[in-house]
């Protein structure tokens, strides 16, 4: 039988993993919900964020917190530029177009990373303040994972507050419901679109930086988690930011507990859950009935 400390440990671990899923999926879902773009390139920018953090730490010699902040802002800026120059050309078309375009973008970006930094693993050390663990039964629960949970929640809340309390956020939420009517109210949506892509990508970037101390930094690091994130946005509801939080946490917990059986079945269970949701409630847990254009 599992001791209670193991259960709590698994629970917290699942939440921490789930929070990372939620952050990454949150960006994806906003981008798909508002822009109608399936952003395959998300996985490349997870790595970009991690590499930026790496450079900030190694080359610039700054601390972990600076690395996180610069990752977030850096990838956010890249996102803004990308949207204005390339992504905006994909709007209003067959989703296959944005899918393949962003797939090509991802290929190019990942290869660029390989060219610049090579294919080897880099390491980012857990910052000293977060080393060690909280004692739990026989073992200790890593402090860094608790940090992940906390910072994830902070970031999520930050984006949520932006969406709820700022004029641009209001416009984004309105355009998520009905892009055409938003424009018919005299409200231009180009800035909203650029901000959305920027925020989405920024979340991917900082997600990568946050994951780096646990999994190392290498160009393909975002690939496997991206597919899980697609499952998360389907479960949560495409376009629902809060939905990706709930769905992300659920998937994190599923993955954490079912890993006891086998890691493969843990992953499989997420996709089984996704298939179930698609069969029973295809708009997702928090999905809203179709957007009007």
């Amino acid at each position, binding site marked *: 039988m599992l001791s209670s400390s193991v259960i709590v440990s698994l629970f917290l671990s699942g939440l921490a993993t789930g929070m990372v899923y939620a952050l990454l999926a949150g960006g994806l879902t906003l981008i798909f919900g508002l822009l109608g773009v399936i952003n395959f390139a998300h996985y490349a920018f997870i790595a970009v964020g991690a590499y930026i953090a790496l450079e900030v730490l190694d080359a610039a010699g700054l601390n972990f917190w600076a690395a996180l902040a610069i990752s977030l802002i850096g990838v956010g800026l890249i996102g803004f530029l990308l949207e204005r120059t390339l992504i905006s050309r994909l709007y209003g078309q067959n989703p296959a177009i944005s899918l393949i375009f962003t797939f090509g973008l991802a290929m190019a970006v990942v290869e660029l990373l390989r060219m610049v930094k090579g294919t080897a693993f880099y390491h980012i050390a857990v910052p000293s303040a977060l080393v060690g663990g909280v004692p739990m039964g026989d073992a200790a629960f890593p402090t860094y994972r608790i940090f992940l949970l906390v910072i994830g929640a902070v970031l999520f809340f930050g984006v949520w507050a932006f969406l709820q309390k700022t004029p641009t956020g209001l416009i984004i939420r309105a355009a998520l*419901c009905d892009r055409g009517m938003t*424009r*018919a109210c005299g409200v231009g949506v180009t800035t909203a679109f650029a901000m959305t892509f920027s925020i989405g990508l920024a979340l991917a970037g900082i997600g990568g930086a946050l994951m780096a101390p646990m999994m190392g930094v290498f160009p393909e690091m975002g690939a496997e988690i991206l597919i899980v994130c697609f499952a998360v946005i389907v479960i949560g509801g495409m376009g629902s930011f809060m939905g990706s939080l709930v769905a992300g946490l659920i998937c994190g917990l599923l993955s954490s507990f079912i890993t006891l059986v086998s890691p493969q079945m843990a992953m499989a269970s997420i996709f089984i859950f996704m298939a179930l949701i698609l069969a029973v409630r295809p708009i997702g847990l928090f999905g809203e009935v179709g957007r009007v254009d």
Partner: protein
Amino acid sequence: MLEIQDLDVFYGGTQVLFGVSLTVKKGEIVSILGRNGAGKSTLLKSVVGFVTPKQGSIKVDGKDIVHWPLEKRTKGIGYQPDTKRLFGTLTAFENIRVSALGTKNAKATMGNVEGILNYFHPIKGMMNRRAATLSGGEQQMLTLTRALAREVGLILLDEPSAGLAPAIRDNLAQAVTDQRDKSGCSFLIVEQEINIPLGISDRIYGLLNGKIAFEGTPKEAVETKAIEDILMISKKG
């Protein structure tokens, strides 16, 4: 204020509006009457910009807006769509606020809200509720408030009385005339119901199968029996 000339509009390969011309002067309340499918909504959508005419001109305040993007045109226009098109996940208040952001004077628009809500008092206490949770009639009142609060010179209403209780319909008529009297705002109202158009309009156009079939005052419309004969609408109680 609004001048439409020789408008031809197509949906795909099918022509919906044939050489439509109409005007709305400053401070006028003009109604368009017609059956379902006559093209009334399409006409309003052309002014707003959801539909691009194949040819013809649409001038607002003297400027031809046919090639302007939606958000540029509607800075000075208010629009209440027949399908309501509320922002479902936003609160009622936020629905109006988004619209205010799109006007030249958001503060003034928000300032008008309280006054407009006096006409639609049932939704006064619902400003913090999500729009999708409101009933059909409440949503109609909200979409009207969203349009009427705007500090603009021209307001387009597409079947504004649909789903409203009779008492509120009277309030609506009052709201429109009061707004026009107060600010000189022009109105172009599309209706299937004759009560509001006959009650408060300065002029009426009749739209039949995509063409203007009648133009005149409400009095003339009734006297010449144009309403019954050409427009084939029955007077609803």
